[in-house]
């Protein structure tokens, strides 16, 4: 967490901030348009501010807006938010390997502040959890640095978007920068053929099952892609262990 001295005094904290300069503009553009979209949809200024400051999850914020306006029941809105956020459950499982040494509230707070991009940047710099204390500290400091950049650019730009809501025409479609940001991350994850297959299957199923309620098309798509890729893995012939060639 970025407000802890042991993190923000660590050199890796600066590295985390510097590395995150790259995706920050895309996040800011998305946050800006989310801020505009919240106010323009008519959910109210105070409610928009509260959402920007607390919810801190663009996809579930954007998914909830039409449901709020349609007067959907509370549980449907929350369940939709959780389904859209399900990828974070997977992230948290992975992050536990890096954060297990921390006290509970620090683990949960670190999880809360770790969004899509700061997670991706973190595991790219540190593919494996460190075994020693100094390494663990460096890793948590890096995560804190990139999380601060991520949080700052998201919340800051959301607030600007809320303030400017009446000046930027929604017809410009600046919100698409957020989708482009996600496309970039998606491509950066496509490092193996099976991962590419996973993306293709999930994309197809996500579209084909779009009519499912609660945004369950996302869950169905993830399930189908993961199951298919794991079965494909089993079908591949085992790598021969012959030291010949």
């Amino acid at each position, binding site marked *: 967490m970025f407000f802890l001295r042991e993190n923000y005094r660590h050199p890796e904290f600066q590295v985390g901030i510097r590395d995150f300069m790259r995706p920050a503009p895309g996040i800011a553009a998305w946050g800006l348009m989310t801020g505009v979209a919240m106010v323009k949809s008519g959910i109210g200024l105070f409610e928009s501010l509260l959402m920007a400051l607390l919810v801190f999850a663009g996809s579930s914020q954007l998914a909830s807006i039409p449901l709020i306006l349609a007067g959907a029941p509370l549980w449907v809105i929350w369940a939709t938010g*959780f389904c859209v*956020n399900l990828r974070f459950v997977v992230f948290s*499982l992975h992050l536990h390997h890096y*954060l297990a040494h921390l006290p*509970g509230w620090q683990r*949960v707070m670190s*999880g*809360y502040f770790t969004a899509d991009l700061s997670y991706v940047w973190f595991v790219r710099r540190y593919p494996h959890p460190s075994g020693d204390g100094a390494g663990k500290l460096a890793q948590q400091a890096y995560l804190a640095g990139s999380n601060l950049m991520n949080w700052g650019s998201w919340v800051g730009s959301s607030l600007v978007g809320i303030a400017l809501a009446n000046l930027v025409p929604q017809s410009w479609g600046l919100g698409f920068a957020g989708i482009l940001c996600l496309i970039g991350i998606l491509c950066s994850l496509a490092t193996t053929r099976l991962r590419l297959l996973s993306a293709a299957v999930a994309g197809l199923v996500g579209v084909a099952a779009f009519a499912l309620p609660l945004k369950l098309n996302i869950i169905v798509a993830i399930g189908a892609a993961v199951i298919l890729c794991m079965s494909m893995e089993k079908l591949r012939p085992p790598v021969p262990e012959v030291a010949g060639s």
Partner: protein
Amino acid sequence: MMDINWHTVVIVLGLTVVTVLARGFFLFSNRTWSLPHWAQRGLQYAPIAALAAVVVPEVVMVNGHLMDTWKDARLYAGIVGAAVYFWRKDVLFTIVAGMAVYMPLHVGLGW
């Protein structure tokens, strides 16, 4: 002065709890979760699948249906954005190039 809809405030607070629950899911317990092999393999494919499941409908669908025209700026911006990523390996380039395609088509031609 400000007209606060407390029902919406409750929804927002609930969504905050949802974020904390999802992002902290396995972090609440101190137990070191040792993942079974299948789950470790699944982790290889789940994140990219989740992104694709969110992104692809945003690029090819209109109001819950597959787009029925080629005149849609998102399609071309998405393709260019992805191509530029594989060329320059940089998310910022993807956003800039994608928006450079998107804005003229969307604002200029109304696609």
